[in-house]
């Protein structure tokens, strides 16, 4: 197994006081809490942090951990010393609170899949055992001959906008806590192939029935909720079911109100521009957004783009300058004068 440098995880020196550890934990917990954080690896980081805190916040566990010595490095191959736990006084019946002990009942059990390192040194079978949440996948108290449904879980999944439009099959990787025959908890990667229903929107949750925790004693499995996030798209932005895009047009297309091809999620459509269209003008393609009970619209914002520089283009613009009396700032100068 790999050594875990809990001080490094917490970003504190080995000599940190319990108060400093508490402060470091709170600060990092705010940053990496998976329900708040935008960091990609928030869930893993938060789990590591909870594990480090579980050990360092507890003077007995911390003292035992410190006895391993200061020479170990994060990730180094590690075997627990044969005399691990000897010479320590343990408070009987201690550690009866799970990794999530505060407030809301038994709470969520993200702590149930701490590392092998933790589980070996401080888990159920260790001298520090008795910590709930390391038995029966976090559902302590379920005795033999007792059936209970498994827990629901939530995971985040990133999909392409095209998949949301058409529906599509995505492969997602999850880490699921699992109990080994010798009573350790490991987190096992799990791959699911999921068909995403068409018309899902950013932030929406969809359900995979029976893909949460396994039930106990033949009870039904919990469900897995997937929170859908869209990957950034090169052309489109989204607001609910509405799709927003920029559309570059040539000055003459805008001036003459030409018909132009516009990309939409369902494929290109032809759009007749209003004559004398302005840059920044917003046009709506009704029903061309994401599908749903009320399908979204696609909005396009026009940007007027000049042709690339060339002698011909310059000749042309020079002629326009000479032949078209036009001051685009006439109003600005007029109001400037009025206020002067």
């Amino acid at each position: 197994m790999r050594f875990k440098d809990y001080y490094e995880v917490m970003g504190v020196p080995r000599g940190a006081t319990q108060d400093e550890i508490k402060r470091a934990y709170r600060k990092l917990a705010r940053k990496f809490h998976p329900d708040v954080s935008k960091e990609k690896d928030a869930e893993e980081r938060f789990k590591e942090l909870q594990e480090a805190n579980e050990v360092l916040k507890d003077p007995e566990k911390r003292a035992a951990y410190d006895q391993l010595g200061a020479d170990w490095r994060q990730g180094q191959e590690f075997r627990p010393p044969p005399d691990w736990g000897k010479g320590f006084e343990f408070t009987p019946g201690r550690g009866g609170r799970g990794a999530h002990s505060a407030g809301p009942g038994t709470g969520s059990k993200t702590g149930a899949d701490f590392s092998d390192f933790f589980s070996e040194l401080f888990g159920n079978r260790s001298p520090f055992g008795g910590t709930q949440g390391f038995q029966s996948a976090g559902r302590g108290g379920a005795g033999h001959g007792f059936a209970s449904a498994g827990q629901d879980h939530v995971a985040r999944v990133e999909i392409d906008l095209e998949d949301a439009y058409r529906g599509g099959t995505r492969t997602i990787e999850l880490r699921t806590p699992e109990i080994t025959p010798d009573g350790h908890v490991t987190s096992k990667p799990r791959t699911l192939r999921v068909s995403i229903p068409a018309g899902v929107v950013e932030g929406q949750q969809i359900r995979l029935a029976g893909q949460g925790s396994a039930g106990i004693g033949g009870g039904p499995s919990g469900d897995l909720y997937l929170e859908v996030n869209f990957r950034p798209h090169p052309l489109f932005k989204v607001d609910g079911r509405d799709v927003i895009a920029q559309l570059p047009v040539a000055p003459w297309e805008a001036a003459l109100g030409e018909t132009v091809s516009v990309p939409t999620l369902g494929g290109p459509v032809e759009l007749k521009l209003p004559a004398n269209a302005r840059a920044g003008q917003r046009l709506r393609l009704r029903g061309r957004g994401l599908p749903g009970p009320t399908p979204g619209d696609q909005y396009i914002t026009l940007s007027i783009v000049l042709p690339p520089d060339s002698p011909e283009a310059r000749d042309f613009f020079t002629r326009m300058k000479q032949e078209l009396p036009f001051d685009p700032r006439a109003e600005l100068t007029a109001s400037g004068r009025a206020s002067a």
Partner: protein
Amino acid sequence: MSTRNEDGDILRAQFLDDDDWLRIDEVCTRLSVERQWLVEMVELGALDPHGGLEPSAWEFPRRELPRVLAMTRLVADLGVNLTGAAIILDLVEERRRLLSQLGK
């Protein structure tokens, strides 16, 4: 367990229907929370069940479950209170909407 995919089958994700309601005990089991915790959430207005005054008669919309779970974790992990957790989730949702409009 029969629906677990070990053989690479494609799992069909479903939308959360508006008319899918769960009894309080089922919510407790699914989220691994105490009944009293849900009662507190209701009292603070963080959850709005059907079914009158008696908690045993309450029914909760399934679509609220991920939010209840998130609030529970925020309270347990960060030491905020329920009102704080509800505000955090509202702000996270608002941030998501704004970032999405910006295409990020």
